[in-house]
């Protein structure tokens, strides 16, 4: 399936219509926002099978995986937004110094206007709708540009969204890089981008021309630090979670998926045995036949992954798996032990089912190892050592840190989700999504009385004294000064 690109006129017209709708004030009402969110729930319920099918067509995701990582995530976000929206839109009172009495201060969230969302192909459903929910909750109009690399999902979104949501305010524009370029020439009030750092740079550069704020959700090499756990049961749970986190979500094609494992030399062999055993249990003797494993998105990415292990030094480090089948775009769960650190597999984000294991003498060295690389979107650590936990939190930097599990932080919508440095900036999920698509307007309301004379010229010594005390909020002396008792 090939998505045709949208013309400049079509793109301009869509934005023009969205702007017109925004200035009508319609999208500001809480009723409108809730109606759109409810319509999204309806869209999902009515089209659940089609969604599963599209995700299977694009990525070979099993419905359970599709529900866990996409549909379920979106339904939860909708639920949270619907039940919290009244609380979110309410202005927050700020305390104003007594000096300004009886003025009132508050922070009022207001919609930004027209939002552009670029979603990516690996979670083509949730990474499109999750930010959309935030943008709608905040009262914006939105143009969504789904990735053309997941064409079935792109066209599903383009065909269903206009049937359920207000099509004057929320639009889907399909297309490839030319369409993105056209969209980026226009002035938006915020651009939300999920994808690679390389494209992220282009998006931000284009946004600079119009002073448009951007959110960049990028990726990075997310490390998993596995401490030697003395209790074999804990170790087993850890390895199970690692297998689930590496190959479960879209076969490793996930921005918060595990990229590589850091482990002490002495545990490596037990670890590899257990990994193999659990892979066997999850995906069977012949993983190629398994319906539980997603496929590589396309030939281009397949070739990229193939290249990563072509390097003979890397190929020699494979201890499990390593078979690829181009026809079915299948890559076997593959484990590599200590591949060279200067090889591409250890310098680039893998974004696929290869798991390099890097052995260290001492697990403490992992901190230095992580810090010598760009800041990842997530760090995972399996440990019961509180000191190590504290060190990881305070000495490393990443979008998030999760202890003793993987990817689950994505489900916790009381936590901000977003990167730092090369893994992006800006954050969303839950209330943070609402904040991301709102401007926090400072509002101060004064009255005509009382009037503080010393604010105005011509300046006198009395006024200087008054202002000094006022800034110190020294009310006692201020009263003395006003009564003429203090000089």
């Amino acid at each position, binding site marked *: 399936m090939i998505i045709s690109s949208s013309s400049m006129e079509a793109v301009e017209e869509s934005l023009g219509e969205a702007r017109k709708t925004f200035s009508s004030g319609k999208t500001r009402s809480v009723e409108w926002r809730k109606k759109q969110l409810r319509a999204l729930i309806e869209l999902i319920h009515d089209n659940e099978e089609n969604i599963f099918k599209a995700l299977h067509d694009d990525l070979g995701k099993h419905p359970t995986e599709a529900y866990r990582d996409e549909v379920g995530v979106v339904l939860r976000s909708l639920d949270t937004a619907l039940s919290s929206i009244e609380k979110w839109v309410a202005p927050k009172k700020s305390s104003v110094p007594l000096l300004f009495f009886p003025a009132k201060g508050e922070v009022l969230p207001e919609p930004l206007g027209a939002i552009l969302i670029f979603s990516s192909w690996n979670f083509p459903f949730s990474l499109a709708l999750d930010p959309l929910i935030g943008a709608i909750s905040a009262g914006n109009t939105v143009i969504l540009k789904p990735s053309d690399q997941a064409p079935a999902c792109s066209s599903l979104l383009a065909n269903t969204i206009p049937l359920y949501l207000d099509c004057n305010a929320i639009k889907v524009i399909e297309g490839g890089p030319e369409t993105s370029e056209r969209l980026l020439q226009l002035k938006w009030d915020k651009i939300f981008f999920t994808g690679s750092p390389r494209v992220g740079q282009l998006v931000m550069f284009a946004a600079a021309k119009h*002073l448009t704020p951007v959110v960049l959700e990028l990726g990075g090499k997310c490390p998993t630090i596995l401490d030697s756990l003395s209790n074999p049961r804990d170790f087993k749970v850890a390895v199970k979670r690692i297998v689930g986190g590496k190959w479960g979500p879209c076969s490793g094609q996930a921005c918060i998926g595990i990229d590589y494992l850091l482990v002490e030399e002495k545990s490596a062999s037990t670890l590899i045995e257990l990994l193999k055993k659990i892979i066997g249990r999850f995906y069977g003797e012949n993983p190629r036949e398994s319906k539980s494993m997603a496929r590589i998105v396309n030939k281009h990415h397949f070739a990229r992954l193939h290249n990563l292990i072509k390097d003979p030094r890397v190929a020699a480090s494979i201890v499990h798996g390593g078979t690829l089948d181009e026809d079915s775009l299948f890559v076997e769960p593959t484990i590599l032990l200590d591949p060279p650190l200067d090889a591409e597999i250890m310098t680039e984000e893998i974004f696929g089912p290869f798991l390099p294991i890097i052995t260290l003498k001492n697990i403490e060295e992992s901190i230095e190892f992580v810090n010598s690389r760009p800041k990842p979107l997530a760090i995972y650590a399996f440990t019961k050592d509180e000191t190590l936990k504290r060190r990881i939190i305070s000495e490393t930097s990443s979008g998030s840190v999760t202890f003793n599990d993987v990817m689950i932080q994505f489900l916790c919508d009381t936590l901000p989700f977003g990167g730092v440095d090369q893994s992006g900036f800006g954050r969303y999920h839950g209330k943070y999504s609402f904040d991301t698509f709102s401007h926090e307007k*400072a509002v101060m309301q004064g009255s005509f009385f009382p009037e503080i004379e010393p604010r105005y010229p*011509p300046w006198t010594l009395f006024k200087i004294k008054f202002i000094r005390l006022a800034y110190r909020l020294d009310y006692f002396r201020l009263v003395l000064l006003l009564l003429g008792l203090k000089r």
Partner: protein
Amino acid sequence: MAEEVLGREAASGLVKQLRETFGSGKSRSLEWRESQLKSLLKFVTDCEQDIIDALLSDLSKPPFESVVHEDINATTVRFKRCPTLTIKERALIAMLKNSCKLALKELKRWMAPEKAKTSITTFPSSAEIVSEPFGVVLIISAWNYPFLLSLDPVVGAIAAGNAVVLKPSEVSPASSSLLAKLLTEYLDTSCVRVVEGAVAETTALLQQKWDKICYTGNGRVGRIVMEAAAKHLTPVLLELGGKSPVVVDSGINLQVATRRIIAGKWGCNNGQACISPDYIITTKDFAPKLVDSLKEELEKFYGKNPLESKDLSRIVNSNHFARLTKLLDDEKVSGKIIHGGEKNQADLKFAPTILLDVPRDSLIMSEEIFGPLLPIITVDKVEESFDIINSGTKPLAAYLFTSNEKLKKQFVLTVSAGGVVVNDTSIHLAVETLPFGGVGESGMGAYHGKFSFDAFSHKKAVFYRSFVGDAAIRYPPYTKGKLRLLKALIGGSIWGIIRALFGRS
């Protein structure tokens, strides 16, 4: 003064050094942050006089009588009227001290991880949000308030535990050189540096990779800063300006309103402030009364001949003087002056000038004025002002004077601006519990008080799980039953989960 032009290599060396210190973890400790904030406070206190002298040399005339800095409580002081700048800048210095003090007082609380709730889906677990410093940040400040706009962001950056490079504006050279010379005597130079310079130095700095850039200035340079930042994926905080409108309704306490407009317009650096009122919108009927009142109060404040008033700042330099002159020379506009218009190029003095009914397509109505010119636009009904404001780019501030509650509400809800103030001007700047920042053309990101700390902190999500509570449904091989249970779990309903566990749904 700048000893030499900072080239690309020197800039890269500087960042490398600071990155090393940051990497050592030095700036992360509470003790370091506190000691730096205390030193900054000490700098402002010790050098108050030097600061004022620098400001006078940059923005006013040669130093005035030393009266103001004599012991202010001494009863014997022979008081003479002092220039606006001294008192305003003293007020701003006081603001700066307040923001240091606030940061010192609240730092522990700000730094503490914030607990986040977790849900049944991930039970048992706990979560928190940890504020961590970005790393090495660049602060580029503006000339109109060279100390406040330099040091206020520095307070936030230090409080958040970053290493900082400050580039003060070359348009206010005395202030810039004072910061370069004295500030570094007080602060830890392994983490905080001041770089002086103009375009060449700024360009060299912008080529480096920073972890955050904070820029105060205009939209044109703001775009350049953001483009440069894009190359390194660096987040930016842009504090720009814009045409901040004042809407004046009838039926108000006119004298108070007028005085507050004057204080915000001419009292703030003679209009050279990003939050100064830029223009007024009022009704045709009310305009004459407003104009009369403005004239009357202006005379009370600045006398019959404002060019001689010591309470009015001058224009910063001849470029800006020429720019303002050009705005008035526009033929669409020159006939509309109803008050003021006097200027004196030799000492860069420009009188408060009011223009009535200037056409909206004139230069003065399409550019930020940033000076003592105040155009008044008239409309039939005051509500029409909302559309006028919203049809332009979003300003940093919007002001309204009214006694009508409905109008207030409508204004607050529909007018988009960085901040909105009803029945006053500019005072929201002094309220630390309000975020200060723009939207659209007036910038992105906000600071002041806790917002400054947040602006320079990365909010890291931290999630704790234990090894128990492992649900098989998370793992392949996937089955229909797992899908059912998953639906129930994500729905978060206990009955759904139980039903699914028993195989009915």
